[in-house]
Structures are given as C-alpha cells and as structure tokens.
C-alpha cells in the first residue's frame, strides 16, 4: 500500500479512497474497512452508514465544507481533493473545516497537489498528504512542509497574525 505524509512523518496509508462513480450516489456500494468515500455518497447513504466508525469523506474541489458543516467531527478522516494542482479551492475548504466547523481529525490532501504546496496546505490545516502520483518522493516532499517558518497572516497553524505577535 502506498505511503503518505502525516504529521510531518512518512506513514502507512491504511485508508482506501473510493473514487466518484457514475450514476446515483445512493447506489454506490461502500466497501468494508477504512474507506474515504465521496461526500455525496455519505449524504445519500447517511442513514445506512451512520453507525460505521471506519468511514471518512472526501470533498472534491467544487464541493463546499458546509455540506457536512458541524457534522465534520463524526469522521476520523476528511479528504480535500485537488483534481489539478492549480485548482486552489481546497485551500479554502480546508480552512473552513478547521476554523468554522472545528474539525479535529485527520485532514488529508488527496489528488494532484504538488510538493511545493505542502507548506501552504499545512498552514490551512491539512496534516496528511496522499499524493496520487505513485512516483512522488515523500522524503523530498517532507522538506517542503516548512518552507516558511514565519508568516504574516493568521491561519490554522498560527491563529495570530504577525501584527498581534510582532515584538
């Protein structure tokens, strides 16, 4: 199984990503075991799935955090997808999940984000990174996590903007 970066270290990825399927979300079969399912599938099958603790959801870049809102904390893992690395909507979705909806679990970037986005993603509250590119070099990618160690803005990792901390 492919590894991922989580909390600043390379770890085993124990979650299986269920891709979006054609057809109705209600008809998608959700496999057993730790699975990350499309948020639309969760919303359609919430009644059947709500007792499972091994389910996480993932947001595509055109799906907004308010689809689950304060329910976020019922999931151990939430994914935010990058269909293309230039599609930056998931940066906002990540912040909203953390800051507005108080999500405390693992927030995982999935899809085609690139190493050079890791620091900003971390700042937006993402703490796990599962590259879709199987050739991504995780040891090298780790180096980009802390491209910046000081920041002007408030964000998830540092809620105080520099102007409130400046000596």
């Amino acid at each position, binding site marked *: 199984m492919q590894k991922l970066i989580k909390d600043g270290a390379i770890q085993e990825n124990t979650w299986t990503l269920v891709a979006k399927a054609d057809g109705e979300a209600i008809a998608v079969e959700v496999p057993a075991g730790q699975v990350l399912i499309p948020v639309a599938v969760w919303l359609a099958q919430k009644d059947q799935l709500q007792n499972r603790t091994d389910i996480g959801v993932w947001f595509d870049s055109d799906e907004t955090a308010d689809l689950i809102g304060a329910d976020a904390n019922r999931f151990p893992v939430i994914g935010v997808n990058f269909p293309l690395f230039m599609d930056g909507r998931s940066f*906002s*979705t990540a912040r909203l999940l953390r800051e507005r909806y108080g999500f405390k679990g693992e927030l995982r970037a999935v899809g085609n984000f690139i190493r050079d986005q890791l620091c*900003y993603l971390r700042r937006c509250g993402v703490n796990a990174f599962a590259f879709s590119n199987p050739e991504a070099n995780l040891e090298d990618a780790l180096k980009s996590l802390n491209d910046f160690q000081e920041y*002007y803005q*408030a964000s998830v990792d540092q809620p105080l903007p520099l*102007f*409130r901390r*400046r000596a």
Partner: protein
Amino acid sequence: MYIYDEYDHSILRQRIAQFRGQTERFLAGELPPEQFLPLRLQNGLYVQRLAPMLRINVPYGMINSTQLRKLAHIARHYDKGYCHVSTRQNIQYNWPDLTEVPDILAELAEVGMHGTQSSGNCIRNTTSDQFAGVAPDEVIDPRPYCEIIRQWSSFHPEFAFLPRKFKIAVTGSTQDRAAVQVHDIGLEVVFNDKGEVGFKVFVGGGLGRTPVIGVAIREFLPEEHLLSYLEAILRVYNLFGRRDNKYKARIKILVRALTPEVFAQKVEDEWQHLKDGYNKLTQEEIQRAKGFFTAPAYETIDNAAAQAAVDAQAADSIAFGKWLQRNVREHKIPGYASVTLSLKPTGVAPGDITDAQLEVIANLADKFSFGEARTTHEQNIVLADVKKTELFALWQECKAAGFATPNIGTITDIICCPGGDFCSLANAKSIPIAEAIQRQFEDLDYVYDLGDIDLNISGCMNACGHHHVGHIGILGVDKSGKEFYQVQLGGSASNDASLGDVLGPSFGADDMPAVIQKIVDVYVANRTAEELFIDTYRRIGAAPFKEKVYAKAN
C-alpha cells in the same frame, strides 16, 4: 516609507530559499515545466519572446535611493543596462538569465525588494496614488493601509492558487489617481459622518478582454475590518470564481454572473464569521503602520517668496517655465512641490530607464527629496518633496539626464505596454506606434494647447497599456498575421471612470500618426474654451470623429 524589520527580512529569505530550491529542481529535471510555471510566475519570472522577463514589485510605488541603486546594479550586471517601469508601478527586466534569477532575487532581498506575487494567479502588488502623502487634495494617506494589505497578502496560504490574478488599488484623495474603479478591488479611504476612518469598497473592475468598471459593494467599511473583509471577498472568489475558462476567471465575471447585490451578500455572510476574529486590526497596528509614513523634516518656508523666486526664473527661461507648467505640481506643504521625471522622451520606449539614469534618480532623490522616489502607473518617476527654491537646480540636472521632457499629462506622455517587441502575448508592436505618435506631436506649444490627453497603447487585448481607459486608446490586433490598430475614444481611469468606445475598423501602423492627428483636429475644431479632449468627446460623441477619420479621400 516602510522599512523591513527582522520579521520581513526573515520571511523574504525563506521565500528566496524556497524559489532557489525550485529553480534547481527545475534545471535538474526534477520539477516538470508545467509545475514550475506557476511557481516561477509567483516569483515574478515570465518566459518571454526573446528571454525571460523578471518583474520586481515596487510596493504602492514607494522606492528609496538605496533600492534605486540596487536596481541599477541589477540592470548593469545581470541585464542589458536598462529596465522598464510597468503600468502597475513595478520594475521589469527583459533580459535576465534564468540560472541567475535566484542570485538577482537574493541581491534585491538585501534592500527589501522582490518579485513575489508580481505575476501568477495570486494577489498582486497593491498600487496607489503616486502623490500619496503630499497631494493637496488628499483626505487620508492611503500608504499605511497599502502596507497592511501588502503584509496580509504576501504568501497568504489560502489565496496562492486563485482562479486568476487579483489586483488591489487604494486611493485617499478626492481625485482618484490610482484608477481604483478598474481593479479587482478598489479601496477609497474616507471619513464617515462621525469622523471615523474607513473604506468605500469597489469590486469587479478590470481591463483585459472584458473591461468593466467596478461597483461599490460597501459605502463604509470601518478601518479595523479591512483585512477580514478582504479575506471574505477573496474566499468567495476563490471558492466560486470560474476555473473552466481563463478568460472568464476574473472576479468581475463572478460579480456580474451573481449580480453585485448577490455577490455583496455572499461576502457579507462570509464576513460575519470573520469580522471579529484575530484579523481585526488593532489601533496599535494602524498607528505602527502610520508611523512609517510620517512627514519628513520639512522646513518652514515662505511660500510667497519661494514662488516669486521660481516665477522670476521661469520668466528668464521659457523651457524652465514649460517644465514647471507640466511636470511640477502643488504640494500640501507651503514652499514644496512634487516633480514628475518624464520617462517619455521621443525615441525611448515609454517607461524604459537605464542603469545610469537610475543612479541619477537615486542621487536626485538624496539631494532634493529626502532620499525617496515613487514610480507611477503612467510609467514615470516622481520626486515628491522638492523645495520650490531648488526646482531650477533640479530641472537643470533632469535636463542633463534626459528626464526633463515637459510633457506630463500631454498626448506624448503615452502609457504603453512592451508589446510585440518583447511580450509573447502581444498581437502587435506598441512601442513603435508610441514613437510615431510622439514624432507627429513634436511641437510643444501645440501639444500644450491641446492640454491633458491620456493616450494609452496596448499590444493585445490583455490591456497592460490600459487602452480602455485612455481618452484615446489604441489596441494592437492581429489580422491574418498582420498588425493592425483599433482606436477607442472616451475612456477614463479617474473618478468619472469610463471605458472607451471603439471608433471603427482598425488601421495599419503607418496610418496611425495621421489618424491620431485627425482625431485631435476634430477636438480642436469643436472644443469650447474650457474643454479638455475628454469633455468635448463626451459632449459631441463619436460621430464627428468617425466622419473625419473614415472620410473617403477625394
């Protein structure tokens, strides 16, 4: 002006190190070109027709003599001995070597300069009024707020991959010299009826393919909410702006699609969550920012005596008098004036400046203007704080250095993008058109008689030369591989912002001087004593101009 402290320097050093690593990975083949592309753009580096182009930010146009000397050094050692002042107050180098760019950036960082976010789909350099802090008509100095925005927008983790580029401009004067209504966000610093400071907020203005005048979505935003409100606008745009078509990705398209009312409501809803968070500005921070833009050590000067001396010198020298009339403007402090150094002599690409000239400006700034200068979006340079009694001496030095062309605000003070000579986006050349028009209007007395005329030229519809808001706008177009020029009349970037109307079919390059001459002739034949070109156009409309320009030769 703002001076970097250890925090600013440390953040910038981290950025330089990051980009050095990215460049090395690219050159080693470890970073694919399509991934390197947005990274290099966000560090100011384009790959252009002939060579890379490196764009360096001049935050809201403020620059000091140390920085000017560094720019000169870069031009001399890493480029071909010159650079270019852009229409967004920035500096562009046209011939750097990609492998040397990290070194250039490291050198610039020593003086607190950089190219970050000068390009790419992110928040760009905030622009402002080149006479901020010194203009007699200023209500509130916008620069402290520009600096607060600069810090907030620099390396913002959420907004580095927006649907498209994003430009913010701020004005604090009754006359808008920052063109705030043609920016993604335009801010006008104002007092409310209780005497509190805040902002009138415009959104969705812009030029480019789809020119739009911005709409005011908030009449008064209290100053402490500046950042939370900007963050709300940017978040709505980041989440809902179109990403399927780059030509429909600017915020103006979103504002139009939703309607300004619905867009404003979405921003309001988002802002309600953010407004009382940590981004709320403290009075300490506002005062700290203001502390960088206090008045320099002005002397107490008898304005009447100083003015009398200047008038006497002007009586002796017609050339000095002309320069005073066009390139010097009133200052809020008695006995002082603001001087615009013209980068528009005939035969030089508008906005181009050599290494030696940069050093001259640095020296002039030290000698005459407290060591500071400003770049302007009209592509000139301003010395903002000159004693009237020293104007004559300054003029003589400007003349020797080639900055004294007394044409500010006239038809030959042309705003012009680099065009097809340099830019890989351009459909047509723009610099030779500017020069041909300057040659057509070489008689200075005649040019003065014509009064203020904004003539703007863009080499393509991306509109870097702001042709939509020129009183006379010229747009280069490509017709089956040949360069043609479309003329627009009636644009304005000021308080009465308007977009020009296309006059009719386009013209060949050789016809352009005569076409502009005919347009000017129609103005001269129809104007009243008080009217500027734009006033006459607005009164009589396009028809008389069309008639004259497209009349069949007989």
